[in-house]
């Protein structure tokens, strides 16, 4: 029997039978959920309420500036720049007389920054107030008419379709962003968890002094590859369990939906597929379920899952080989490992940050290049793919990214193999990057 296969099997079976495997299989999805719910909560908390005091030399802002729950305005005459904070206002707006056809500067004073979004919001409210004032002044429109137009004009809603030649498919920016984000985080976490597991495994073999016993039966490269593939298989098993778990949850959720609602949902789906407006009014529950299934149905799951597996395996091989090299070079001391790990963990963490940008701007230069270069492609490309292939991600980019990742992991595995071969039998002082470089390219 092939020896690498024997090693792979041992790595796999000892790990899968371990309690920590079961524990992490259930804890990791929980952690992801907590992470996402937490960040959504924090983001929504970010919309704090602002009260803005206004000192207006024109006199009309009082009538036209519209406040609501996010930003409210105060126009008391006793407000000035010295006392607005004491009176409970977050900022003070000082608007001088605004002559027509001339740019005039107005000022905002604050103790604490409003934030970019709130400042932009405030600016557009002021612009709207000026427009409203001018319309009222220059036309014969009544004030109440103007107000009612403002109120009732929000009747259009955008629905986006991905145009891939033959059929236009309904897509959802929200779903794509969420799926991209989750895929990116998962690959990031899996790379770290399993990369570190490879490193610890190699260190264990070295410090246990079993490495030399084994390499007298198999080649060091076989030992390293067996470990990498065995631990990788554990990762795939874990991922498979999550997918099964998720599908189970979805089926369970569908069973909870009453039959008649399900029927309505189907009608909605058919109507949407034919592009006709819904003939009969659907119940509110059916609408919600329809929206939810629409959310789940919109991304191309087959492609995403295939790509996820590819990028998980590719990224894992790319980084775990480097982790194995570090593990072989250090001794018992975990601190030594940490300093050598830094050049490996940095690009992974960096990729994570690029990923958060990529879900905002999946077609941008940074996202595009980072999703092609093998150091960051597993994480960043997975954030882009849910936005559509070949729309957002052209086929050539996907192909190039995959080819480079394959070339990348062949290179790192080859290089790690050479470092590993020397490092695994060497005890004593920690090697520097320079000596490891020598092992890789000169020995």
């Amino acid at each position, binding site marked *: *029997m092939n*020896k690498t296969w*024997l*090693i792979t099997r*041992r790595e796999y079976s*000892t790990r899968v039978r371990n309690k920590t495997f079961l524990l992490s299989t259930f804890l990791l999805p929980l952690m992801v959920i907590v992470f996402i719910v937490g960040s959504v909560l924090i983001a929504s908390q970010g919309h704090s309420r602002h009260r803005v005091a206004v000192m207006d030399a024109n006199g009309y802002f009082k009538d036209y500036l519209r406040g609501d729950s996010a930003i409210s305005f105060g126009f008391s005459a006793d407000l000035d720049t010295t006392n607005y904070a004491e009176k409970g206002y977050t900022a003070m707006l000082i608007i001088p007389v605004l002559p027509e056809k001339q740019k005039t500067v107005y000022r905002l004073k604050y103790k604490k920054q409003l934030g970019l979004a709130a400042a932009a919001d405030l600016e557009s409210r002021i612009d709207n107030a000026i427009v409203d004032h001018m319309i009222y002044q220059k036309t014969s429109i009544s004030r109440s008419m103007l107000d009612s137009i403002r109120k009732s004009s929000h009747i259009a809603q955008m629905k986006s379709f991905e145009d891939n030649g033959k059929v236009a498919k309904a897509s959802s920016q929200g779903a794509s962003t969420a799926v991209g984000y989750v895929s990116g985080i998962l690959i990031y976490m899996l790379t770290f968890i399993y990369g570190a597991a490879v490193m610890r495994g190699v260190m*264990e073999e070295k410090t*246990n*002094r*079993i490495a*030399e*016993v*084994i*390499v*007298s*039966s*198999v*080649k*060091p490269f076989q030992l390293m590859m067996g470990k990498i593939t065995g631990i990788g298989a554990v990762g795939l098993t874990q991922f498979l369990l999550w997918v099964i778990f998720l599908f189970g949850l979805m089926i369970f959720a569908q069973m909870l939906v009453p039959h008649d609602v399900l029927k309505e949902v189907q009608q909605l789906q058919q109507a949407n597929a034919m592009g006709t407006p819904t003939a009969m009014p659907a119940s509110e529950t059916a609408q919600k379920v329809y929206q939810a299934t629409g959310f789940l149905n919109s991304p191309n799951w087959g492609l995403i899952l295939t790509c996820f597996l590819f990028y998980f395996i590719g990224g894992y091989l790319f980084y775990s080989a480097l982790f194995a090299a570090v593990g072989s070079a250090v001794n018992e001391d975990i601190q030594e490992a940490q300093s050598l790990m830094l050049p490996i963990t940095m690009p992974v963490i960096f990729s994570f940050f690029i990923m958060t940008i990529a879900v905002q701007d999946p077609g941008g230069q940074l996202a595009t290049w980072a999703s092609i270069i093998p150091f960051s492609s597993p994480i960043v490309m997975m954030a882009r793919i849910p936005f559509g292939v070949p729309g957002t991600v052209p086929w050539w980019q996907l192909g190039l990214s995959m080819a480079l990742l394959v070339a990348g992991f062949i290179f790192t595995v080859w290089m790690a193999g050479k470092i590993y071969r020397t490092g695994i*039998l060497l*005890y004593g002082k920690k090697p520097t990057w320079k000596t490891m470089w*020598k092992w890789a390219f000169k020995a």
Partner: protein
Amino acid sequence: MDILQVKDLKKYFSSQKAVDSISFRLGKGSIFGLLGPNGAGKTTLIRMITGIFYPDEGEILFEERPFNPVKDIVHIGYMPEERGLYKKMKIGEQAVYLAQLKGLSKQEATRKVKEWFVKFEMQTWWNKKVEDLSKGMGQKLQFVTTVLHEPRLIILDEPFSGLDPVNSNLIKDQIHTLARKGSTIIFSTHRMEQVEEICDHIILVNRGQKILDGSVAGVKQQFKENLFSIGLEDANTGPPPAADAFEVVGSKEGALIVKIQDGHRPNDVLSYFISKGRNITAFTEILPSLNDIFIRLVEGTPLARQFAPVTA
């Protein structure tokens, strides 16, 4: 037939010549001592023989064919000095796994492990983990996993370290049994008394070079100093005997130690004492111990290897 032949083997590391042109041959079924001070290059030499390192230069013949690390490795059992086992793995499972890595099928490996466990009275260990074993027990297990696949060449690096005398003897007996059955054993150690007890043949390396090669008896002959112990009644009475043939270099209870001068024979000593009317009770040659030879050859050279730059 030679099981192993090594020709001009060289392995240079950046800071030292670990093995510098070593040659030797090894007959089948012998027990062979590989001796040398710390850092002499023994481990590097062994790692080349076991296919872990590739030699920079030179040739290794295994059973008179060029050594093929992939194919021949299954006929070699190596117990390194730096040895260990997976701590969390069950002992039976681990022994079977290591035997499978040597090319045995699972059934065969299991059968053999059980056999050896019976032989070493380790049957009850099967489901224990290595972390539950004492150091000595671990060494026994390690020995079993080294010889389990019936290798034709067995290399043991300091096999007795950490073993009590009872277990040492158990392993010693097994080494002799394996040699009788036709396995060749390379035995690397610093412990000279064990070498004298076990080995037929030795080579001594120092600073990457072979400085001695021969049978244990032959080496002792080579380094003998013509010392004899002559037992005499009343050995320590009277004036010290004096003659051209020998020189008294010491005395023991009831015996004198004499060194026979060049050009003379033991009979000259005996005739001297007989002519003096002394009663001889014993007469034996004193051969140097391997320990003495080792110290004599190695002393004076830097013990710990100096990290001299390689100028090859």
